[in-house]
C-alpha cells in the first residue's frame, strides 16, 4: 500500500463566468500528481460542501473573482464544519483585496493565493498543510 495521492476539489463559487484560472490550476495540480475533482462554474456553497463531503477531499480550492468572497467563502467553511469536515484544508484564489484577507482567515480559509502565484507554490502549500487522513 503506497501513500495515496492528495485529493483536491477545485470549484468556482458564485456567479462570475471566468474559469480560466481554475482550469489552469486543476490541470497544473493534475501534473503535480494530485487527484483533482473539478466542478467548474457557478457553484453554490451547498454544492461545494456536498462535493467535498462525497468525494472526501483533503483540500478545497476555491477560485473567486466576483467580489462576493466575504459572503460565499465563510458560508462554505461553515457548511464544511457542519458536516464534520473541519480537517479539510480550504484555500482560495482570484481577486481578493488584501484588507479582506484577515476576515477570510478568521472564517477558516487557510491561505489566499493572488494573481501571479505559481502552481508549484500552491501544490507545495497543499502538500505541507493538508492533514494526512487514514
Amino acid at each position, binding site marked *: 500500500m503506497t501513500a*495515496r495521492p492528495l485529493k483536491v476539489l477545485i470549484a468556482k463559487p458564485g456567479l462570475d463566468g471566468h474559469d480560466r484560472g481554475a482550469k489552469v490550476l486543476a490541470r497544473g495540480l493534475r*501534473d503535480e500528481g494530485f*487527484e483533482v475533482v473539478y466542478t467548474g462554474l457557478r*457553484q453554490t456553497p451547498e*454544492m461545494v460542501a*456536498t462535493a467535498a463531503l462525497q*468525494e*472526501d477531499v483533503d483540500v478545497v480550492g476555491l477560485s473567486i473573482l466576483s467580489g462576493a468572497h466575504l459572503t460565499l467563502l465563510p458560508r462554505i467553511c461553515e457548511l464544511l464544519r457542519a458536516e464534520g469536515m473541519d480537517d479539510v484544508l480550504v484555500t482560495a484564489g482570484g481577486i481578493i483585496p488584501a484588507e479582506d484577507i484577515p476576515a477570510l482567515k478568521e472564517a477558516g480559509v487557510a491561505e489566499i493565493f493572488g494573481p501571479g502565484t505559481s502552481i508549484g507554490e500552491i501544490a507545495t502549500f497543499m502538500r505541507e498543510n493538508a492533514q494526512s487522513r*487514514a
Partner: protein
Amino acid sequence: MTAPARSGTGARLAEEARAGSRRALSRLLTAIESRTPAAEEALRALYPAAGGAHVVGVTGPPGGGKSTLVAALVAEARAAARPVAVLAIDPSSPVTGGAILGDRIRMQQYASDRDVFIRSMASRGHLGGLAGTTAESAAVLDACGFGLVFIETVGTGQSEVEVASIADTTMVVQAPEMGDEIQAMKAGLLEVADLVVVNKADRPGADRAAMQLRSMLTLGVEADPADRAPDPDRPRPKRPAVLLASGLDGKGVPELLAALDEHQAGRAHAQRPHAARIARARAQVEGILADRTREALWSSKRRAATDALMERVATHELDPYAAADDLLKSL
C-alpha cells in the same frame, strides 16, 4: 504518513455508514480505494448486507455523453424517490499519477438531496475502464441502501469490457456519427452490452445510427433462434436492444430507465444467481487473490528469495514459468 488503522475502525465506519452517515460512507470509500486494513474489516461486515442493489454499468467512448445521460437517469430515478449512487471513473495519469475527475460537473443539481451520492474515482493505473476497487465500492453503496448504483467507466475504446463483469446490466452509450455499420460488427464492447443507447438523439443522424446498429446487432439472427437450448461450452453474444435517448433534453430517458429495470427484473426470476453475479464474485476473489499473492511474495520475510529468483529469470538462468511454479509451491 498514514497512521495505521486501529482495529475496529473499519467496523465502526461500516456501522455509521449503514446508519446513514454520509461522512462515514465517504471516509469508508477512501479507505477502500487505498485498500487499508480498516476497509477490509468494513467490507467483511458489510458484504452480507449487499447484493440487493441493481448495479448498472455505463460505458462507451469518451465524449459520448455518459455523464449527462447518467445525470438524466438519476433525475428520473429521484422522481420516483429511489435512492441512487454514482461511481464515476476517470483515468489517472500514467506519468504523474494525477487525475482530473470531471464527471461530477454534469451531476450537480442534487447538492441538497441526501439520497443521491456521487463519487469520483481515479483509475490509479488499473486498465479495463474501472478503478481496481470499483466493485468493492459498489458493494458498500449497495449495503448502505442505494438500490440503484451507476458505474460510469472511463471513456472506453473497443475492448475495455471489464465493467460487464461487475454490473448486473451493462449499457453501452454511443453518439451519432461514431462510424459506419462495420464498427458495429467488430467484436468487443458492443458484445457485452445488455442495452445499447444512441445518445444525443437531439442531433441529426441519431435515428440512422440507431437503425444501423440495430440491423448489425441482429444480422443473421433469424437463422439462430434466441430460444435455442443454451450450450455452456459455446456462449452466445447478447442481443441488446438499441434505444435512442438524449441526456441533454431528457428525451427517451424514462424509457431507458424502464428498460434497465426490466432487464434487472428478468434477472430476479432466474433460478440461480445470474452469470453476471458469478463473474463479479470471480473478479473480486481473483483480484484479492492476486493482491494477497503479491503481498506474500514481497513481504519482508520472502523479499530476498523473490528478488533472487527474479534475478535468475533476468539472466535467463531460469525460465519465467519455472520461477512462477516455484513461487506458487512456496506459498
